[in-house]
């Protein structure tokens, strides 16, 4: 039983990362119906950018002050958001009238470009890079599990960011415009909404969240690699679907559930079967709720 509770704790932590990346997936999906396979790679690029900036800012001091990390984190969020926006402007925007599958292939292409771009970049490459800052191991015990303060802060920041997005999309006029664009782009234009700007903002937010997740990953796990985005991207995509893709709350809930299911699956069947357990759970869930946990339930009109 205690193993079970511990795995839930582990899962929540893991899920916080998934959720944050899943939010970006879900938002972009919601607005363009695009599975943006490059999203995980924005996260990866963010990790490398933050690595370089932090490396330049902190020379030799591996326990830098938290505010250094915080402002670098903010800068990286902006850079990654900008990168995502740029990708939208250069690739997805000219393809606005193309079939979804073509968009998806372009996204896969972009993902290849980002990954292999980092691979051939002289300062980055294929090597596992050791992140310049790491969280200290001190923390607290809960059950028989030990959690570090760093983990707690990461979960809190993730929660706050998710809440912020939730508020933005649910309550503000801009958020309503986003939902309007997501449902009917032409009608949105006819409301006087600058659709391109709204889409760009969505990409920016998604990218920024991935940037935040990347810095936290670096700080907590201590290492980054040019393929780190691929796996996280897959898991985040799964999380987004689990929660009901396109739904903000769903992405977070999906992330948490995926994290918990994977952890419990590891506890019971071993880590090698974690992914099987996770996808098994997904199929089971979709069997009962074909549009995801919090997916839309609007009656289909014939």
């Amino acid at each position, binding site marked *: 039983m205690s193993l079970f509770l511990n795995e839930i704790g582990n899962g929540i932590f893991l899920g916080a990362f998934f959720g944050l990346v899943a939010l970006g997936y879900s938002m972009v999906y919601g607005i363009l119906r695009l599975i943006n396979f490059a999203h995980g790679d924005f996260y990866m690029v963010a990790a490398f950018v933050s690595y370089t900036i932090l490396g330049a800012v902190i020379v030799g001091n591996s326990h830098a002050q938290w505010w250094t990390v915080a402002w670098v984190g903010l800068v990286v969020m902006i850079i990654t958001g900008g990168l995502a926006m740029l990708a939208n402007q250069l690739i997805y925007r000219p393809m606005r009238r193309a079939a979804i599958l073509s968009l998806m292939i372009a996204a896969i292409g972009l993902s290849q470009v980002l990954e292999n771009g980092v691979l051939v970049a002289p300062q980055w490459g294929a090597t596992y890079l050791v992140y310049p800052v790491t969280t200290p191991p001190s923390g607290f015990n809960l059950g028989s599990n030990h959690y570090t303060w760093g983990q707690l802060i990461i979960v809190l920041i993730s929660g706050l960011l998710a809440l912020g997005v939730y508020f933005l999309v649910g309550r503000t*006029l801009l958020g*309503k*415009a986003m*939902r*309007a664009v997501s*449902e*009917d782009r*032409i*009608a*949105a*234009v*006819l*409301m*006087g*909404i*600058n*659709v391109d700007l709204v889409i760009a903002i969505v990409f920016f937010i998604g990218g920024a969240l991935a940037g935040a997740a990347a810095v936290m990953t670096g700080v907590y796990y201590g290492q980054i690699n040019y393929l780190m985005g691929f796996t996280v991207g897959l898991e985040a995509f799964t999380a987004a679907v689990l929660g009901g893709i396109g739904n903000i709350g769903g992405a977070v809930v999906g992330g948490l559930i995926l994290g918990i299911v994977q952890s419990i699956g590891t506890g019971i069947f071993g880590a090698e079967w974690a992914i099987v357990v996770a996808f098994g759970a997904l199929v089971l869930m979709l069997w009962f709720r074909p549009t995801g946990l919090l997916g*839309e339930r*609007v*009656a289909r*009109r014939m």
Partner: protein
Amino acid sequence: MKALELNDVSVFYGAVRGVEGVSLYVDEGEIVALLGANGAGKSTVLKAVSGLIHPRHGTISFFGEPFAKLSAHRRVIGGLVHVPEGRRIFTTLTIGENLELGAYGTQRSRTERAQRLGEVLALFPLLEQHFERLAGTLSGGEQQVLAIARAMMSNPRVLMIDEPSLGLDPQKVDIVYDMLEEVAALGTTVLLVEQNVALALEIASRAYVLQQGSVVLSGRSASLAQDSRLSDAYLGKATHDHG
């Protein structure tokens, strides 16, 4: 003052002609109808005016100002609102949110928006009782009312509306047309696209008839209603269909 003026406007979709050489105008405060069979190019004209598509040549001006390069959403903010075919309300948003978005970009402050919302709800009391409902749950007629109300939220100078009677039962058609007359009475200029000739001529002061992408007939409603060329315009297209 001419609220809207089109001069020799042509639109092509690739090699396919949408409309060619269309010239028309709408005076301020007037209701003008655009009539024609399916595929005659009525909706194309509206789309060209609202900026959803760009004419290959010709000019469109709005209260004397040409807006060739103005993007669609800027035209809305400038006071030109287009209620498209099929209503296109946001079904996953509430009625309140739909209305709020109607004022997007025109009323910047929260209080301004609230005030306008009050005015519009007074005009369309039906919507007030369903304020928190998802718009997708409204019936077809109610959705049409919402679409007009949403368009009115930005206090437009010109309202263009595409086939408002489509799919409505006779009573709902009455309601919607009464509403259009009310809107016009408040000083809004209306350009109306309608399939149902009799209905349109009843409220419009003037009308243009499109056939295969060109204006073939225009004039005051009263005289057009008696013009035999009006039904010929429709028949011409029909005989072609049989080839």
